[in-house]
């Protein structure tokens, strides 16, 4: 009887151990597989060519990722510029000012936004943001545009990463101890002075981490961006130009025209770049958040 209990205990432990290891291994395996497949193109082309050549002509054997990297950066940065201030102010309101009732309703509502499939955001982008850009925003700047632009993609992406940043930011603000706010109030500081000088100051590393997390989300987001960015393989020079981000490149082309030499390898190389960047930023923000949690104890 006793040995059976112990056996079960050990079994449970090993199953969970294997599951955990499997998940970690998966990340490493994906990275390794991507690297294996992109070795062909790495052997043929120099890294400088791949990253900085402004020419994507697979049929001619030219695989310059520059337009796509720039497309990704333009779209991601637009999204971050829009969402950082908005989510910062929203998080402050919900954490510091909102009555408990509003906070308890708003938090799950915002979390719900994070669960909406990205294709729906894409459709919303096509139906609302693209026409808005085409009919009002581009003409306002004296430009002609189809509406499928860096701007449209940036707005859609901003709305998508909004909930993630707000969620983490609220947690970070709440981790600042109440007594610290009291210490400031007791000196006659107003609520705003307390937030500005004490709460934000204490929370800043965590807030930066929250935004980095949002950034890495935006960097890798595929579907919604692909639907509204325009997908023209040319580096954008303004936010009213179309863009072709890396994830869209992979999603649009992988599985087609793979008879072209090195095409397959080039796309997986793009995937590898994406994988490394997103992994890097995710790990960075996790580390920062763990440190914030420790310091607030």
């Amino acid at each position, binding site marked *: 009887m006793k040995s059976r209990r112990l056996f079960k205990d050990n079994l449970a432990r090993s199953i969970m151990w294997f599951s955990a290891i499997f998940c970690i291994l998966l990340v490493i395996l994906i990275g390794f597989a991507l690297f294996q497949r992109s070795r062909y193109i790495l052997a043929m082309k120099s890294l400088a060519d791949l990253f900085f050549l402004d020419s994507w002509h697979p049929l001619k054997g030219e695989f310059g990722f520059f337009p796509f990297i720039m497309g990704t950066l333009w779209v991601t940065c637009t999204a971050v510029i829009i969402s950082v201030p908005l989510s910062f102010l929203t998080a402050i309101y919900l954490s510091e000012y909102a009555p408990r009732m509003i906070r308890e309703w708003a938090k799950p509502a915002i979390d719900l936004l994070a669960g909406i499939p990205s294709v729906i955001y894409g459709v919303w982008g096509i139906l609302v943001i693209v026409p808005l850009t085409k009919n009002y925003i581009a003409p306002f700047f004296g430009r002609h545009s189809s509406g499928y632009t860096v701007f449209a993609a940036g707005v859609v992406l901003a709305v998508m990463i909004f909930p993630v940043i707000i969620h983490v930011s609220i947690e970070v603000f709440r981790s600042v101890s109440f007594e610290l706010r*009291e*210490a400031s*109030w007791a*000196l006659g500081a*107003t609520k705003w002075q307390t937030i500005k000088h004490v709460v934000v100051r204490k929370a800043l590393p965590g807030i930066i981490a929250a935004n980095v997390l949002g950034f890495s989300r935006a960097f890798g987001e595929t579907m919604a961006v692909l639907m509204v960015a325009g997908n023209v393989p040319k580096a954008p020079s303004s936010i009213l130009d179309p863009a072709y981000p890396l994830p869209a490149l992979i999603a649009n082309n992988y599985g087609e025209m793979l008879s072209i030499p090195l095409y397959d390898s080039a796309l997986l190389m793009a995937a590898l770049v994406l994988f490394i960047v997103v992994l890097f930023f995710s790990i960075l923000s996790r580390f920062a958040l763990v440190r914030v949690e420790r310091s607030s104890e």
Partner: protein
Amino acid sequence: MESTSHITVQNLNVYYGDNHALKDITINIPDKQITAIIGPSGCGKTTLLRAFNRLIDTVDGVRITGKVLVDGEDIFDPRADVTMVRKKMGLLSQRPYPLPMSIFDNVAYGPKIHGIRKKKVLEEIVEHHLKMASLWEEVRDRLHEPASRLSIGQQQRLCLARGLAVEPEFILADEPTSALDPKSSLYIENRFRELRSQFSIILVTHILRQARRLADYIVFLYLGELIEHGPVNEIFENPREERTREYIRGVIS
């Protein structure tokens, strides 16, 4: 002895939701003395203290009736400026909570938020109040280090200096030595003895001996009611109420 009163409490009731935390408190807090509020845990000591600087406002679901007059003005009047009420009250809490900034900026924080900008003036304020809290000698060479690097005892004296720097009329101390070692506690107690000539100090404490050594006036609360108040000798040697006598003898707690 002249005994004017800066703080007058009239029929103060505090409710946290359904919990009637303070029941019809009426009392004059004597000026320029150390008043100790004593009583068992949960009797409303801290609530009463936090009513004086309106920190209880920040509790969800709190309801307050009655008046607290500070310098003749009702601080719970909707027209009262809560920041000016709090500026009159230096708070020393159970544990030190240094602000996330340097030692210098912790002390300069209060004067700064009240509009003092000149660096020279701020430097004088910081030095003066760190001396008052007898911390100056220990930190004069590292004023720009983060305050979190100080020991707990030093942090508590820093919080005292920070509270004094806004030039309050009162010091509200909520069990200020409960997180400190005996030596640091003694430091704080000695500071209070020196400060009593300039400030009215209101001290919440669960240590009866501390109340006895330090206080001039005792306020005894029990289950939200004001049972008895009077000069320290009267309360400790000749209490009028049975419950006071029992609490002091350690029968009830």
